């Protein structure tokens, strides 16, 4: 054993790494009381099996399909309006936080300190917005504005606004500054220089990331439905609570198709844009 370790210089680090992994995972296993055997416990397996057995055939009564259709539209609407609201939150904040419009490269502006001072609170706000998951916001707003899609839209606007704002600001900062600089040298203001010098370069990447986030928002709005924020998720939660497997199956299939379509639409759109 000693000999083989000495022969392969990578053996010892690998062994150490494996031991570290085990040491890190073991307390986790203990803490979560992870025990696959509970799945097979007859007390659990019975209801679970009955629920799963109901999955086939899926529920296809016209009234239920109509309900699912309506919920699907609602989910899409939450994602669309949520992303639009998130954009409305993100865009102004990204302008406030980005460094690409700072005048220090072109020359000291008299009020640059004021803008620099504004940048940090705005950044903190973005961190706060995206730091709390949309599910938590949804829970909060279900309490505040009641069950339904509004809570989901507000939750998406907040969390995704924070994410979009941060990424937008980074996209601006990675684009070339000379076009905007040249415009400011000819007397343009900072916002004008942004719209004519920075935005044309940043736009494709911004749209691409926003579309990707929209795709995430479709999934998120389903999940938020579980806490009562409307859409397909809320229907799924109701059917699951009733242990109605056929309905759950129909909703899950719809969900699957919706996510696949969102995926495809987003990929198509981004390819068209590139």
């Amino acid at each position, binding site marked *: 054993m000693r000999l083989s370790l000495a022969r392969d210089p990578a053996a010892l680090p690998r062994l150490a790494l494996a031991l570290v992994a085990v040491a890190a995972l073991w307390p986790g296993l203990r803490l979560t009381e992870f025990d696959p055997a509970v799945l097979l416990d007859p007390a659990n397996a019975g209801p679970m099996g009955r629920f799963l057995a109901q999955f086939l055939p899926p529920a296809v009564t016209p009234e239920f399909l109509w309900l699912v259709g309506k919920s699907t539209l609602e989910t899409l609407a939450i994602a669309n309006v949520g992303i639009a609201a998130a954009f409305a939150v993100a865009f102004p904040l990204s302008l406030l936080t980005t460094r690409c419009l700072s005048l220090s490269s072109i020359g000291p502006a008299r009020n640059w300190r004021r803008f620099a001072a504004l940048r940090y609170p705005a950044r903190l706000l973005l961190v706060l917005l995206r730091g709390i998951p949309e599910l938590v916001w949804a829970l909060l707003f279900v309490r505040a504005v009641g069950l339904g899609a509004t809570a989901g839209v507000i939750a998406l606007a907040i969390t995704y606004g924070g994410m979009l704002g941060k990424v937008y600001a980074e996209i601006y900062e990675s684009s070339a500054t000379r*076009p905007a600089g040249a415009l400011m040298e*000819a007397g343009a203001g900072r916002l*004008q220089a942004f*719209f004519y010098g920075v935005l*044309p*370069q940043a736009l494709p990447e911004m749209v691409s990331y926003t579309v990707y986030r929209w795709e995430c928002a479709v999934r998120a709005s389903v999940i938020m439905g579980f806490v009562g924020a409307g859409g397909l998720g809320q229907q799924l939660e109701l059917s699951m609570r009733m242990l109605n497997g056929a309905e759950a199956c129909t909703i899950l299939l719809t969900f699957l198709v919706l996510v696949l379509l969102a995926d495809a639409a987003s990929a198509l759109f981004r390819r068209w844009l590139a």
Partner: protein
Amino acid sequence: MPAPPVSALHAQRLSLVHAGGRVAIDALELAVQPGERVAIIGPSGAGKTSLLRVFATAQRQSAGRLAVLGADPWALGGRARRRLRRRLGLIHQAPPLPPRQRVVTAVLAGRLGRWSLARSLASLAYPADIDGARAALGRVEMADRLFDRCDRLSGGQAQRVGIARVLYQGPEVILADEPVSALDPALANRTVGLLVEEARARRVTLVASLHAVDLALAHFPRLVGLRDGRVQFDLPRPDVNDGLLRALYAQEGFLPTQHGKPFALPEVRLPEAPRCG
């Protein structure tokens, strides 16, 4: 009693030291009167671009005094400096145009300094002054590319779009940094002629750096020879002689021309330029 004439550009012991410690401009003295047309010539690395950038308030001098249209740009507040800058137009050797922007937008951007934010934004949705942009482009023979994207242009075409932008801006001082370096000799000649004619007709001050000595001699009444960040000579065109030029370009060993042929003073006929106002 009339006020004493204010120089368009006035540099006194002007110096610029780059971040690395390289001296680009060294205690330079130069005054340009309103409406004058001045060519700056000199070997590569003489400080031509640096000087124009300092004149355009794109870069602040390290030492010395600069007055642009009678004002010290770096003593002004932000708002006043913006007002000053809209009266200055810098033509870049490689104009910084966003690749996906359309030519029409890039040209219209010349007047952002005079437009309100609302008008600027509206012009992004629908170009505010298509005719104006087309006219400016037409003067550099680019009217047919009005709705093309800037990344579809060759280097020379982009350079002409940059010139059209400054023509559209209509500044009181045009600073041109090797404005025709990417154009073929005939087009370069016509384009420099156009700039000089624009300056003459509208009483605009024009300071252009040119690598090609023949172009400078053919079009400009006053020539400034720049070397190692200093003015080596500053003379009216008839007083510039072969000896001065050879001394200026001593290190290069030859006099650069547009054609790359042996240097000779060419006969140049100015193109018919449309007059504005």
